[in-house]
């Protein structure tokens, strides 16, 4: 399976803030790759760097085996994107918007093809309607049509379900699954809606404060064999020291808090060992769903912000 996106040690510094810090990840062909993180985690900054909207301070971005900095136009010709809300020319019709962006992508498209695209996103009957009269959901669907009109191999969607009602979210999910399964597109999608990512992504990354917290297959991360166990003790620092000296050191996760990625069935053994090490346990929690997993990672790293679900 070939690598579609390869990011190496990517960083972005904005004056005093490091929005992205030494980030590396890989998206393979055919992946629906989930990009998760709270507000300010660095998701949008990373996506903007992938789309050459922002210049990285450090690191490399390789897409389709070519460096983005030197092969920008060649790469972007094969990429379709929706960045946050799909802002389009409000004073133009849906058809005109689609036609303009298709031409800008260097694609010669017929009227039939444009109408097919509008049909696909359920806007064929509003082709002549001005975008300013559209609902948020309709704009979002038109944004998707604009991203797909030149038949890109890679689709990047930054928060595509923002502002959509439940039906809109379900439609968007079905569309993404169709694009992936029926059309073989590689999709990178960022979202706050963790349950959505859980339903559509096969691989994911979790960012926090610009850094990668975890990357892997969604199935693996949700596997009970790989539950995230978090412990609260009377003295976490001392308990962690003792765990690092024990057989549990390999599954102990980085960070100030005590988190272990392990088979849930071995928790009794862990507790027994901790008691033997003279550690007083206050609580033990296990995370299974992606949302809990995400929460446990970000909460325990010391900073939590409310996020939409």
């Amino acid at each position, binding site marked *: 399976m070939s690598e579609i996106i390869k990011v190496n040690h990517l960083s972005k510094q904005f004056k005093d803030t490091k929005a992205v810090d030494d980030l590396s990840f890989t998206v393979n062909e055919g992946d629906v790759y989930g990009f998760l993180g709270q507000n300010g985690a660095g998701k949008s900054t990373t996506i*903007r760097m992938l*789309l*050459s*909207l*922002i*210049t990285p301070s450090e690191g490399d971005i390789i897409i389709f085996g070519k460096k983005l900095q030197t092969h*920008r*136009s*060649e*790469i*972007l*010709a094969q*990429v379709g*994107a929706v*960045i946050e*809300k799909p*802002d*389009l*020319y*409000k*004073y*133009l019709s849906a058809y*005109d918007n689609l036609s*303009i*962006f298709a*031409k*800008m*992508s*260097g694609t010669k498209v017929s009227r039939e093809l444009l109408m097919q695209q509008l049909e696909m996103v359920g806007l064929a009957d509003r082709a002549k309607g001005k975008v300013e009269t559209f609902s948020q959901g309709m704009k979002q669907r038109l944004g998707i049509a*604009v991203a797909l009109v030149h038949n890109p191999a890679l689709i990047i969607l930054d928060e595509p379900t923002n502002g959509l009602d439940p039906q809109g979210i379900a439609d968007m999910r079905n569309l993404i699954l169709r694009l992936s399964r029926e059309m073989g597109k590689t999709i990178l999608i960022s979202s706050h809606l963790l349950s959505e990512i859980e339903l559509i992504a096969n691989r994911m990354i979790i960012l926090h404060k610009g850094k990668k917290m975890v990357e892997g297959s969604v199935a693996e991360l949700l596997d009970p064999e790989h539950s995230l166990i978090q412990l609260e003790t009377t003295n976490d620092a001392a308990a962690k020291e003792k765990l690092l000296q024990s057989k549990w050191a390999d599954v102990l996760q980085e960070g100030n808090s005590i988190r272990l990625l392990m088979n849930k069935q071995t928790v009794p053994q862990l507790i027994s060992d901790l008691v033997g090490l003279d550690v007083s346990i206050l609580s033990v929690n296990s995370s299974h769903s992606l949302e809990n997993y995400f929460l446990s990672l970000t909460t325990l790293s010391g900073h939590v912000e409310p996020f939409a679900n």
Partner: protein
Amino acid sequence: MWNLLQIELFKISKRPRTYIAFAAIAAIVFIFQFAFKADGQSYMNLMLQSVKDSFEFERTKAINGYFMCYIILNTLLVQLPILVALIAADSISGEANMGTLRLLITKPISRTQLILVKFAAATIFTILLLVWMAIISLFFSLLIFGADDMLIFRSKGDESQILLISQDDVMWRYLAAFAYATVALTVIAALSLFLSIFADNSIGPIIATVCIVLVCTIISNINVPIIDKNVRPFLFTSYLVGWKGFFYIATTEDGVPIKGSVENWAAIRNSLTILLLHIGVLLGASVFIFRKKDILS
């Protein structure tokens, strides 16, 4: 590139604000024409008051289409920068405001191409604005007032001068004057485009353009030797009305106008060179800054 320019012109043509400039010009020109048709003779008497004994000219023929166009140009070319700024200052900032700039940058077109296309579109808009102005201020005036020899009132230092240009020697001067005005207003377009790179809405760059034009015009008109020598020659506003040079006809020693002549070609060439330099510098700076800019809005 041509494809992108077509798209840009299509977008401009679909925006209602584009037509405000054309409507504003038409309104002002028609008011002028109406006022001069109704009571132009009073204006002419006032202008010729000081020379009534020494200058022989049939006053009823003085107000003709050529003279009207000159009066209109003299007034309107000061206001036109605002109308050009309305479109040019919206080039990048308007896209940023709508959020479409993000989408544009993710398309396989270079940022340099994008700036050049925006500049070309603003220049075409400027040309169309001047063509429209030529049609209504020159050709409509000729239809309404007829054609005759053209009177020019000129202030030269402390002196006032009246020049008379034969009617068969006027049209080429207007063509040259409109071409010159296109270059002069293209400087305004380049300035507005440059300012629009830094903003997320078009109001800021429009106001900034008008303020810069205003301040520079005031400085250009301050008659202080140190400014005359060290500042004025470098300000584009000192050359915005350089089109008048085409109507300053050279005369013989006896004061007889020489047909097809211009008093100071060198001054016109110098003005055009400085205006073109301004365009080059502003456009170059726009490309340089925009290529490095992080698109956050």
